[in-house]
């Protein structure tokens, strides 16, 4: 039972056969409540089993199905077909090398994420039997928004600075660094500083703001980066005013 027939123009790339990616068009009968991922699954199950793409949860939690829909980075599971015209151009995320079809190589991001040490660095290690690190609701509210990141890479795909210079640490990793810097249980800010407050870190960002516009979880990485810039500038001046306060 289909409500509408649409054409999916999908970028295909087979590293074993193709020198460059090319578009292939599929005609798909869609139902009213389908998201783009459903349409792609229809292609995989009924029209072309060679199509490669990542997906898992189908509910904007796992962050696997990021791709460019008519040029705009989006989660395929979070984009209703009914909101698109008759023809949807589907490409892998921009700014990342294509492994195959809609699958991109995310190694660069994984390295950058690890570099900002995105975990609580506590002042002293505590055994599990010693209980939790307690936190008030107000302390949680300071960083909660930034915990919503699902590492879907839409922000990197939307960021022209990352496209021009891939040494940029990038929106999601910097937002997560900010998330831990704001955490009352964390003392790792100075340990993250070498990466975060460097030229390829926050200072490569020129506040285009595209990352925040495409973020499916309203993390607002652009805000995180600007706040980090202000804090880092404060550190810089404090270094001269109160040199004894430094580590």
């Amino acid at each position, binding site marked *: 039972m289909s409500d509408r027939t649409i054409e999916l123009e999908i970028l295909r790339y087979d590293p074993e056969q193709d020198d460059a990616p090319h578009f292939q068009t599929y005609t798909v009968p869609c139902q009213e409540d389908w998201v783009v991922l459903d349409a792609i699954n229809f292609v995989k199950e009924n029209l072309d089993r060679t199509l490669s793409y990542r997906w898992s949860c189908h509910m904007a939690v796992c962050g696997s199905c990021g791709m460019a829909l008519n*040029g705009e980075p989006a989660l395929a599971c979070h984009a209703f077909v009914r909101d698109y015209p008759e023809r949807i151009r589907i490409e892998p995320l921009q700014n990342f090398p*294509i492994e195959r079809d809609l699958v991109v190589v995310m190694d660069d991001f994984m390295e950058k994420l690890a570099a900002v040490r995105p975990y609580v660095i506590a002042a002293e290690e505590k055994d599990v039997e010693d209980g939790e690190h307690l936190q008030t609701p107000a302390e949680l509210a*300071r960083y909660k928004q930034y915990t919503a990141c699902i590492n879907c890479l839409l922000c990197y795909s939307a960021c022209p600075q990352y496209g021009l210079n891939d040494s940029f640490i990038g929106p999601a990793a910097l937002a997560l660094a900010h998330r831990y810097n704001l955490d009352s249980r964390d003392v790792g800010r100075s340990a993250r500083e070498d990466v975060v407050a460097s030229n390829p870190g926050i200072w490569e960002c020129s506040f285009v703001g*595209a990352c925040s516009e495409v973020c499916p979880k309203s993390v607002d990485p652009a*805000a995180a980066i600007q706040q980090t810039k*202000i804090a880092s500038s404060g550190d810089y001046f404090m270094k001269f005013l109160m040199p004894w306060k430094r580590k």
Partner: protein
Amino acid sequence: MSRRPYLREQSKSGWWLSQPRYVRYMMREVSAAFIGIYALILIIGVHRLSQGEIAYASFMASTKGPAGLLFAAAAMLFAVYHTLTWFQVTPKAMPLTLSGKRVPGGVIVAAHWLGFAVASAAVWLLVGS
């Protein structure tokens, strides 16, 4: 099975034309050039003033030609756009928390406009008319 990742390079010069949001960003960045040139003209004006009345009068006359007026209008438009866009993003860069509650972004933006109005009025009172 061999890996041979393919990288689609972003255009080094034309990237900003690919999305309306990038064009808006570039407009905001370019506005700085107009404001910078306007400031430069102002400095030249002050310098001409120091050279005496005749020098200053000829400077003033040169700013009132069609090119001068056109530039002043363009600089004004870009200055307004610059102010508008920067005030709009201030809640992102400077979020405020008052007695445990986050101050709504609209209030922060409005406070900036209020500050702008007060500063403009002060300048007007000091040197206007």
